[in-house]
C-alpha cells in the first residue's frame, strides 16, 4: 500500500513538474531591430533638410502585452500585429521628435499575457520594473485588464487598456476615475443605447433579451436594462445560453410565449451565430438585434446565411466602405486598413487591432510631447497628464475621443454606428433607412 501511495505521489509530482515546464516564464518577443545599420539612419536624416541636426536623446520604451495565446488569442493576435506594425513605422521614421527638437528612438517591448490574469500581472510588473517602460499598453480581456490596474496604479505608470469593461477606468462603486488607467474600446452601454434608439424608432416596446452565460453576456444584459427602461422599452423575457449549446428549444419556447416584438442578443461568435440560426428557425418574423461583440466576419460566416438582415451597432471599422464620405473617421480607418493589410499580408481586419492602434497612437503622441532630460517618474506623470488633457476631438478607429479627467475613454454612444448584414457583409445602415 505505501508503495502505491508513493507511486501516486510520484505521478502527481511528475504532472506538476510537467505543468511547470509547460509554462515557461514569459519571454520577451523583442521587436525586430531595424535591418539597416545606424549609419544609414543618419544618412536618411541628413537628406531631410526640414529635420534639425541629429541630436539624439534617450530611447523611449512602450510596454505592450496582449493575449497572443490562450482563449483570447482572436483578440490578442490582431492587437500584437498592430503593435508590431506601429513599431516598424516608428523605426522607419527614426522614432519621435520632442518639442525641443531632440529625436528619440521608440522601442515597443511585446509580451504575451496568455489570456491569463496572473501572467498579465507578472509581465506588466516586468515591463515596469525591469524594462522601465514609459507607458504600458496591455490587456486584451477585461479580466486581465482589471488585474493590471492595481499594479500600474501602485507603480504610478500610465496604462492604456484594450478591453471594454467600464470598471477598468472607473471604480464602479464609488464612481471615481482611476487616475492612471485609460481605455480605447467602446462599451456595452453604447451598444444598448443604439439598440434602444433603433427599437424606439421601430415602435417596439416589448423585447426579449438572450445573452451568453459569460461576463460579457451578463454585462450586455445589465446595460440593456439600464438603457431600455428610460426609453419605455420593456424586457419581457430574458434567458442565457452557453457558447457551445446545440439545442435552443427552451429559449425559443420562452421567446414565443412572451409575445415580444424583437429579440436583442448579447453574445459573441460562435454563440451569437448559433442562436441566430435558431431564432430564424423558430421566430422568422421577429427582428434580431445584436451588440458590437458580433462586429466581425466570423459572425456572418458561422451563421451560414441566418445572419442576413440582422442589425447591430458596430464600430465604423467594419463598414468603412459604405460610410458617407464626410465621416471624420474615414481617413483614419482607411489608412489603418491599408497599413494593416500591407503589414500582415492580408490578415483580416478586426476592431480589436483598431483598439490597439488607438492605444498605441496615444502613447506615441504623448511620448512626442516630452521634452528631453526628464527622469522616468516625471516622464510617466507627464504622459498621463498629456493623454488626459490633449486627446480631444481625436479621430481614432474606435470613434472621436474626448478624454476628460472624469472620463478616461471619452466616447459617446455615437462612436458606434449602426450596420446591417446584407449579402454576407456588414453595411452601413443610416437612420434614414430605418
Amino acid at each position, binding site marked *: 500500500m505505501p508503495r*502505491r501511495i508513493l507511486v501516486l505521489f510520484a505521478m502527481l509530482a511528475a504532472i506538476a513538474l510537467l505543468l511547470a515546464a509547460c509554462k515557461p516564464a514569459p519571454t520577451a518577443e523583442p521587436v525586430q531591430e531595424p535591418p539597416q545599420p545606424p549609419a544609414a539612419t543618419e544618412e536618411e536624416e541628413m537628406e531631410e533638410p526640414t529635420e534639425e541636426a541629429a541630436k539624439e536623446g534617450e530611447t523611449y520604451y512602450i510596454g505592450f502585452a496582449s493575449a497572443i495565446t490562450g482563449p483570447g488569442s482572436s483578440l490578442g493576435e490582431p492587437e500584437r500585429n498592430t503593435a508590431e506594425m506601429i513599431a516598424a513605422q516608428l523605426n522607419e521614421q527614426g522614432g519621435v521628435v520632442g518639442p525641443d527638437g531632440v529625436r528619440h528612438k521608440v522601442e515597443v517591448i511585446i509580451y504575451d499575457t496568455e489570456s491569463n490574469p496572473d501572467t498579465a500581472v507578472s509581465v506588466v510588473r516586468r515591463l515596469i520594473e525591469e524594462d522601465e517602460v514609459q507607458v504600458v499598453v496591455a490587456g486584451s480581456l477585461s479580466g486581465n485588464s482589471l488585474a493590471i490596474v492595481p499594479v500600474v496604479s501602485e507603480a504610478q505608470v500610465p496604462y492604456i487598456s484594450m478591453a471594454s469593461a467600464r470598471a477598468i477606468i472607473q471604480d464602479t462603486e464609488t464612481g471615481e476615475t482611476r487616475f492612471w488607467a485609460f481605455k480605447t474600446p467602446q462599451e456595452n452601454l453604447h451598444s444598448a443605447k443604439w439598440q434602444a434608439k433603433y427599437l424606439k424608432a421601430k415602435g417596439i416596446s416589448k423585447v426579449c433579451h438572450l445573452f451568453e452565460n459569460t461576463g460579457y453576456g451578463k454585462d450586455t444584459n445589465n446595460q440593456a436594462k439600464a438603457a431600455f427602461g428610460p426609453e419605455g422599452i420593456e424586457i419581457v423575457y430574458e434567458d442565457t445560453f452557453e457558447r457551445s449549446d446545440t*439545442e435552443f428549444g*427552451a*429559449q425559443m419556447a420562452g421567446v414565443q410565449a412572451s409575445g415580444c416584438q424583437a429579440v436583442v442578443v448579447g453574445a459573441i*461568435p*460562435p454563440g451569437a451565430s448559433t442562436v441566430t440560426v435558431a431564432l430564424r428557425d*423558430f421566430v422568422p418574423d421577429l427582428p434580431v438585434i445584436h451588440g458590437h461583440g458580433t462586429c466581425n466576419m*466570423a459572425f456572418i460566416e458561422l*451563421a451560414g446565411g441566418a445572419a442576413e438582415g440582422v442589425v447591430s451597432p458596430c464600430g465604423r471599422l467594419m463598414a468603412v466602405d459604405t460610410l458617407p464620405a464626410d465621416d471624420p473617421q474615414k481617413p483614419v480607418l482607411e489608412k489603418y486598413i491599408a497599413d494593416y493589410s500591407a503589414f500582415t499580408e492580408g490578415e483580416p481586419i478586426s476592431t480589436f487591432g483598431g483598439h490597439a492602434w488607438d492605444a498605441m497612437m496615444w502613447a506615441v503622441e504623448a511620448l512626442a510631447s516630452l521634452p528631453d532630460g526628464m527622469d522616468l517618474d516625471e516622464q510617466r506623470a507627464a504622459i498621463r497628464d498629456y493623454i488626459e488633457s490633449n486627446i480631444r476631438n481625436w479621430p481614432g478607429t474606435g470613434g472621436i475621443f474626448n478624454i476628460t479627467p472624469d472620463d478616461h475613454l471619452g466616447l459617446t454612444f455615437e462612436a458606434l454606428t449602426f450596420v446591417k448584414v446584407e449579402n454576407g457583409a456588414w453595411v452601413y445602415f443610416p437612420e434614414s433607412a430605418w
Partner: protein
Amino acid sequence: MNRFLPPWLHRWTGLIWLALLLASVVLLGQRSQYGPTQYMQFTMDGLRAGTIYALIAMGFVTVFNVTGIINFAQGAFVMLGAMLTVTVNNSATFLPPAPRLLLAIVAGIVGTTLIGLLLERMTIYPARHASPLTLIIITVGDFIALQGLALIAWTAKPYTLPAFTTLQIADKTIRLAGVVLKAQSFWIWGTTALVLLVLGYFFERTMTGKALRACAINRLGARLMGISVSRMSLVAFGMAAALGAIGGIVVAPTTRPTYDMGLVLGLKGFVAAIMGGLVSYPGAVLGGLLLGILENLAAGVTKAGLKDMFAFLLLIIVLLYRPHGILAARQETVEARQP
C-alpha cells in the same frame, strides 16, 4: 429517503420520483402556458442531445469494462473527431463537397482512433500496474494535454462543418406540427442506431468482441484463458476514441466546433454513463437519452441557462440513490463484476 418508505413501495420509488418530476414540469410549464408542442420540442431537443451523450457514454463504458478505469480523456476524443474532420474538410478542396465530407469523416474517425491507441500505449500501458486511481489521474492529464495541444493547433477560433444533408452550414429545417427539427438530427439518430448494431454484432459474433466481454466479466479469468488483457485495453481505448469521434463529428454541424468543446460534452457523457451504471451499453444509451430529455424539459420550464446545472444535479441524485445505475438490480454491484 427510501428506508422511510413502506417496503411494498420500494420497487416503485423510481417511478414515483419520475411521476413527481413530470408533474412539477407540467406545473411549471403552466406559468408560460406551454402546450404539447413545447413539450414535444423539448423532448426532441433532448433526444438529439441525449443521443450524442449516449455515444460518448458508450466510450466510457468500453474503457471501464475492460480496464476498470474512468477515461476522462473521452471528451478530448469528441473534440479531436470534430476538429480533425473540419480540418480535412477545409483542406481537401480538390474534391466535390460530398466525397470531401465523407473523406473528412473517415479521416476524423481513423485519426482520432490512432490518437486513442497512441495515448493508451504512451500513458496507460506504462502505468498498467498502478492503481486505478493513478490511471484515472493520468487520463485527466491526457485530457488537459490533448486540449492544450488542440489550442496550439487550432487556436481558440470556432470552426464550421457543413450539415450532412445540405452540405452547407445552413441545415434543412423540418417542421412537424409546430415542432422544429433539423435534418442533422436524423443523421445523429441514424448513425447511433448503426453504431449500436455494429457494436452488437462485434460483441456477439467476433472473437475480439467476445474477448472484450470476457475481460469485462472477469479480468483474471480472461487472462487465465489466454486473453491478453493489455491488448484488450488497447482495443478498448481505440474503440472509445472512435465512439467519441463519431459523436463529435455528427454533432459538429449543429454547433461550431472549438478546441474546448470536449469538456462539457465529455462530462455529460460521463453523467450518462454513470446513470447507466458504467458497465452496460443499453444502460448508457438509456442514461444518455434520459439525461438529454430531462435537462431540456427542466431547462425549458424554468430557465434555459440552468440546463447544465440540471444535468449535474441529476448526476448527484443518481450517485446518491442509484449508484449502480438506473437499470441495475439492487444487489448487483460494480465491485462484484470487477474482481
